[in-house]
């Protein structure tokens, strides 16, 4: 399948990358002590790596081309229609029901099976599931690239921290307030900006995320600056005092409930009049307007609803760590959540859940890998866009069965 010519090409590519990365990968200087460290072995890794990557990419492209050609020649149509495994699992109740039941059982008894430490990590992963589902409404469904999503998360977290500090409000009171406050911020930001071209939205939200963080860092009287706010109470349960272990278990189940609630709501939203309008907006804005959809308002709804989840998870985050400071709300957080949506598949609920669990849990358990986390996340974004823009699990449109009359 791979010809000699491809190998030759791969060699050239490898040489190119060796030369390209030479100064940064091989040389390391210390300008003060005037020392040069030469790391020649890195050349080998870069060369070998790019050689293999090229061949793998090439093989993948060739396979796709062969399939496309066969479809064009009408050969594929005669073969039995090949549905991808992931889709078969989702569509066939005989397969997905037991899987779903097993999954549900696993998550329900998780704290009994694993240590508090593991449970804590799982809580974080579940938080990212909700964040992913929230951002999925904005980016995946409505097609609005929001790079400042973390700002709404920060709004929620600081809402709980500050309202508790100044007014003594409890977790359950602030949970909806945090969500609504974030949604309000979403509307305030979205109103002027959503009229603009899509790519400007990306940069404005990016800027907005940074502004919020910088304000939190510098406005000491308001947010206590970089040192943050500590001693935030954990969620209460009818005023019962709990040990640390118990309160983590409690938080875990709370988070599970939150995930279920989010899935329920997001799923219903997607299959509604509003949800259809979001999808249509992503597909073609102009056609959408010509069909009578109010572009700004529809976008604003998506933006605010996405922010709402971030605000709620923000409140939970503050309650979980009992401490907030601006360092938790950098652009990297937004990037991770975006990565979850892109990897999972834009608009696909199942995909986003799987992607969140994989992307958050994997680096926790593969410590060696955690250093390369952000590098890999960046690469994931590029690779998914180039090779599989629909994500690991493509979004499936609802089908209707119409009685013959």
């Amino acid at each position, binding site marked *: 399948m791979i010809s000699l010519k491809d190998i030759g090409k791969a060699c050239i590519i490898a040489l190119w990358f060796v030369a390209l990365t030479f100064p940064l990968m091989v040389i390391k*200087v210390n300008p003060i002590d005037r020392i040069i460290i030469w790391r020649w072995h890195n050349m080998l890794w870069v060369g070998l790596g790019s050689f293999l990557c090229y061949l793998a990419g090439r093989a993948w492209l060739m396979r796709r081309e062969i399939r496309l050609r066969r479809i064009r020649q009408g050969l594929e149509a005669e073969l039995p229609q090949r549905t991808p495994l992931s889709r078969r699992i989702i569509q066939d109740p005989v397969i997905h029901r037991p899987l779903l039941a097993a999954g549900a059982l696993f998550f329900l008894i998780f704290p009994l099976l694993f240590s508090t430490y593991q449970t804590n990590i799982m809580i974080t992963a579940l938080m990212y599931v909700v964040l992913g589902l929230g951002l999925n409404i904005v*980016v995946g469904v409505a*097609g609005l690239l929001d790079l400042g999503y973390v700002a709404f998360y920060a709004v929620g977290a600081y809402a709980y921290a500050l309202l508790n500090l100044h007014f003594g409000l409890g977790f359950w009171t602030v949970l909806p307030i945090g969500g609504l406050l974030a949604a309000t911020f979403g509307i305030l930001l979205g109103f002027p*900006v959503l009229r603009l071209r899509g790519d400007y939205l990306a940069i404005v939200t990016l*800027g907005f995320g940074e502004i919020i963080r910088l304000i939190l860092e510098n406005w000491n009287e308001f947010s206590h600056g970089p040192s943050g706010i500590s001693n935030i109470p954990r969620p209460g349960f009818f005023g019962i005092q709990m040990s640390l272990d118990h309160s983590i278990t409690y938080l875990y189940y709370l988070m599970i409930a939150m995930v279920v609630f989010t899935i329920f709501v997001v799923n219903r939203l997607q299959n509604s009049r509003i949800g259809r309008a979001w999808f249509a907006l992503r597909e073609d804005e102009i056609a959408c307007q010509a069909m009578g959809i109010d572009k700004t308002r529809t976008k604003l709804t998506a933006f605010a609803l996405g922010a709402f989840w971030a605000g709620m998870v923000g409140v939970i985050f503050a309650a979980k760590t009992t401490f907030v400071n601006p360092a938790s709300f950098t652009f990297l957080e937004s990037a991770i959540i*975006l990565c979850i949506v892109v990897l999972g598949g834009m608009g696909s609920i199942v995909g986003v859940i799987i992607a969140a669990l994989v992307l958050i849990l994997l680096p926790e358990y593969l410590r060696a890998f955690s250093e390369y986390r952000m590098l890999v996340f960046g690469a994931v*974004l590029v690779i998914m*866009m180039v090779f599989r823009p629909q994500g690991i699990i493509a979004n499936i449109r609802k089908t209707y069965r119409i009685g013959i009359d």
Partner: protein
Amino acid sequence: MDYFVELFFSGLTRGSIYALIALGYTMVYGIIGLINFAHGEIYMIGAFTALIVSTVLSIFGFPLPAIIILTALAAAIWASAYGYTVEKLAYRPLRNAPRLSPLISAIGMSMFLQNYVLLAQTPDFLPFPALIPDFDFMEPYAGFIGSSDMVILVTTTVIMILLTLLIKFTRTGKAMRATAQDRKMAMLVGINVDHVISVTFIIGSALAAIGGMLIASHIGQINFYIGFIAGIKAFTAAVLGGIGSIPGAVLGSFILGLTESFATGYVSSDYEDVFAFSLLVLILIFRPSGLLGKATIEKV
């Protein structure tokens, strides 16, 4: 008054650097309509390459003028190579994809390059040797403008003039303008659009690298993160001037540089970055086509 003049010149210096970066944004946007988020990283890579090359050369005992010239060349060449490669890997396959795809790819590239430099080099700040000596003839003005400010201003001006000449009068420049105006049409009249796009990335990257080297030597330290903020600010400048417009990018950069300089000098330096971002949001709301940009109506 002296303080004012000092702030003015430091604003101009800032503006020059923004301009060198903003040109890359604006040229790429003009031609393929993409916000190249990775452009800030190219600038950062230019600065790192400059640091590495200049240190190696100085350890090998090269004289200062040779170091400066070779460093500038190396930074420009490697940054261009990165720019070229990034376009080929991350943007070219997405030429006809939905509009969100190349943007997400660009974000991914930016994260990748940042962390690549972090891992390959260091997460810490590195001191950057001052490449530009204090000239004697600048002595009387040292109160408000340093030698390196002077060099930055002159270099930027020369580069701007060269770029303008290139775009106005060379074949490549004409092909670039044609492609920016209507890519399909350019293709029909036989312009190699892929080639033009590559050239655009190469030029933009080289300019950013020179900017990276100059500012690094001026400020005296760099790390892997400098491209992020500088990138957003340069983009702001490009939008302020009218994205896609080359004189606009230069004008926007100087306005932004001066605004920042005076705002931090007279108001507060805590909110340095907030000024730029707020400016960006305000322009987009009130004049999305920028100062020199033309409002176009999307063809249906």
